[in-house]
C-alpha cells in the first residue's frame, strides 16, 4: 500500500476514535453520519486542501463547509488533529461554555467555515463563498459536504441551479450517500434517486465513488477532475456508522451517542483496526 494511502487510512481511523470518545463524553450527538464521513474528511484535511491551522483565516485557503452540520464530531476531530485547537477540547463537546457546539459555529470554533445544522443552508453558503472567490480571482477551492436526506430540501436544488448558472468550477460538493436519514431509509422516506442524473441535469460534473475507498476519494477530489465552467458533485457511496460493527447501517445510530460500555466496544474495534493498518506494509 502506498505510504500516502496508508497514512490517510490511519488518519481516518484516528478521527473515528476521536468521534467515539467525544460523543461518549458528551452523552448525546450524532454517531452514524459522523462515522460515514470520516474517510472523506480525512482526505480533505490531510491531503487535498490547502489550509493553515496556524492561520485559519488565511485569505487564499481552500475551505470546507459541513452542510450536514449534525456530523460535526468528524469535523471537530479533523480540526483538532490538524492543530486548530488542542485535542483536550474535544471532550467538552456539547457542554456549557464549550467552543464545540452541538452543531458547527463559525464564531466559536477555529477552522469552522460556516455555522450549519439547518440542513441545506451550508450548501447555499458554500455557493456564495465560491462566488466570492471567483469575484476576487482567488485560486482556492470550496468544498462542501451534503447528506443524502438533506437533498430532500428544496434549497439544495435552488443552489444546484445557481452554482452551474454561475459556472462555479471552484465548487466541489460531496454527497455522503449512506441511504439513511432519521425516520428510515432515504429510498423509502423520500426517494432522491437517480441522483447522478439529477445533478447532471442541473449542469454539474458528477462522479460516483466508494466513499470509504481512499484512492477513489483522492481521485475524485483531484483538481484534474474539474471540468472548466462547471461545479463538481461527488456522489460518495457510504455506510452510515462505518467502522463500528454494531453501528453500521443502523438507523437508530443516527442521533445517539454511545454509552461508556458501547464506546469501549467501539474503541476496541477501532484500535484493532489502527494496529492492523500500522503493521500492514
Amino acid at each position: 500500500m502506498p505510504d500516502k494511502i496508508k497514512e490517510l487510512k490511519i488518519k481516518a481511523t484516528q478521527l473515528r476514535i476521536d468521534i467515539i470518545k467525544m460523543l461518549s463524553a458528551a452523552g448525546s450527538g450524532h454517531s452514524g453520519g459522523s462515522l460515514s464521513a470520516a474517510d472523506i474528511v480525512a482526505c480533505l484535511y490531510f491531503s487535498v486542501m490547502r489550509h493553515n491551522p496556524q492561520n485559519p483565516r488565511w485569505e487564499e485557503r481552500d475551505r470546507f463547509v459541513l452542510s450536514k452540520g449534525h456530523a460535526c464530531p468528524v469535523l471537530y476531530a479533523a480540526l483538532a488533529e490538524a492543530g486548530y485547537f488542542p485535542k483536550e477540547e474535544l471532550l467538552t463537546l456539547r457542554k456549557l461554555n464549550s467552543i464545540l457546539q452541538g452543531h458547527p459555529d463559525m464564531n466559536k470554533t477555529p477552522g469552522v467555515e460556516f455555522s450549519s445544522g439547518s440542513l441545506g443552508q451550508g450548501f447555499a453558503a458554500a455557493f456564495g463563498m465560491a462566488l466570492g472567490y471567483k469575484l476576487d480571482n482567488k485560486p482556492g477551492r470550496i468544498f462542501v459536504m451534503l447528506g443524502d436526506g438533506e437533498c430532500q430540501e428544496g434549497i439544495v436544488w435552488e443552489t444546484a441551479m445557481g452554482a452551474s448558472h454561475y459556472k462555479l468550477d471552484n465548487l466541489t460538493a460531496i454527497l455522503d450517500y449512506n441511504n439513511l436519514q432519521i425516520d428510515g431509509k432515504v429510498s423509502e422516506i423520500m426517494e432522491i434517486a437517480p441522483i447522478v442524473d439529477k445533478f447532471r441535469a442541473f449542469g454539474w460534473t458528477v462522479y460516483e465513488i466508494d466513499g470509504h475507498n481512499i484512492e477513489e476519494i483522492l481521485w475524485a477530489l483531484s483538481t484534474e477532475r474539474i471540468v472548466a465552467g462547471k461545479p463538481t458533485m461527488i456522489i460518495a457511496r457510504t455506510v452510515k456508522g462505518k467502522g463500528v460493527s454494531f453501528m453500521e447501517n443502523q438507523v437508530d445510530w443516527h442521533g445517539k451517542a454511545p454509552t461508556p460500555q458501547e464506546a469501549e466496544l467501539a474503541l476496541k474495534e477501532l484500535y484493532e483496526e489502527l494496529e492492523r493498518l500500522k503493521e500492514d506494509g
Partner: protein
Amino acid sequence: MAEQAVKSTRRAYGEALLELGEREERVVVLDADLSKSTYTNLFAKRFPHRFFNMGISECKMICCAAGLATTGKIPFASSFAVFAAGRAWEMVRLSIGYTNLNVKIAASHAGISVGEDGPTHHCAEDIALMRVIPNMSVLVPADAIETRKMVFAAAEWEGPIYIRLGRPDIPILFDDSYRFQIGKAYVIKEGKDVSIFACGLMVWQAIEALELLEKEGIDAELVNVSTVKPLDEETILRSLSKTGCAVSVEEHNIIGGLGSAIAELIGEKLPAPLERVGIRDRFAESANWKELLKKYNLSPQDIRDSAIRALRRKVEKR
C-alpha cells in the same frame, strides 16, 4: 416529597394525536423526518394511510398541509419549532394564515430546553413569528395534561393554530379536572401582591418561584396564559387591577413573545409596572437544558427577582 410524575409535552402530543385519530377520520398527520422526536410516529404506526412523511422539507410540508385542508382534511403538521415556524415562515403566512385554512402546526423542541443540539436547533422566536400572522392562534401548553386537552380543542377549532411543544420531561402539573379552552387563561393560584403571567414549562418554574416569594411574605398570583393569541384580556386585566404589577415568564426571547403581548395589552388598557422574564435577546448555546435555564435567566430565582423589582416599582409609583 413524593417523586413527581413527568412527561414531555411532545410525547403527550403524540399520544393525544393517536386518540384523536381513532375518533376523527379527517385527521391527517404530516412530518418532515422527525417523527420519532415529535412522536407523530405513534399515529404513523396506527394509521399509516393517514400519515405523510415529507422527508426533510418543511416548506413543502406546510403548503402540502394547506392543500390537504382544502380537501376537508384536518392536517396536523409537525417538525421542530425552528423549522416549522422559522424556516417555513412565509409558507405559514400565506398558505395557512392568509388562506385561513384549517391547519394545525404542532412544533416540538421549542425554546432552549432543546439543550445540547445548540442554537441552530433552539427556537426562542416562534411565539413572535406565529403571533404576527393574522388568523393564527398560538397555544403553549404547560404540561402533558394541558397538551392533550389542547390537541382535542385544536381539532374542533376551525382555523389555523400553532401549538408549541417542548423536548424535556417536565412535571405534570394538572389533573384530569383541568379545563382548557382556547382563548382562556387559567388562574393557578390567586394572590394580591403581584401577577405572574407564565406559559409553557416556565409555569412549572413559576410555581417554584411562588414558594420563594411566599417565604418572603409575598402573595403572588400565578396565571397560566397558555393561549398567547387570542390573549385572554379579561383575565389578565382583572388580575392586574387587583395586584397592580406584573411579571411575564416565558422560554422565549423577551422580544415578541408573551411578555410583549402583555406589554401591548396593558400599555393600552391598564399601564402598570411589568418585568419580563425570558431570554434576553441573545442566542444560547449547547448544554444540558437545566443548566441553560439557569444561565439564560429562566430559573425560579430569576422570576422571584423580577417579582421583587415589579413590586418595588409599584410602591415607588404610589
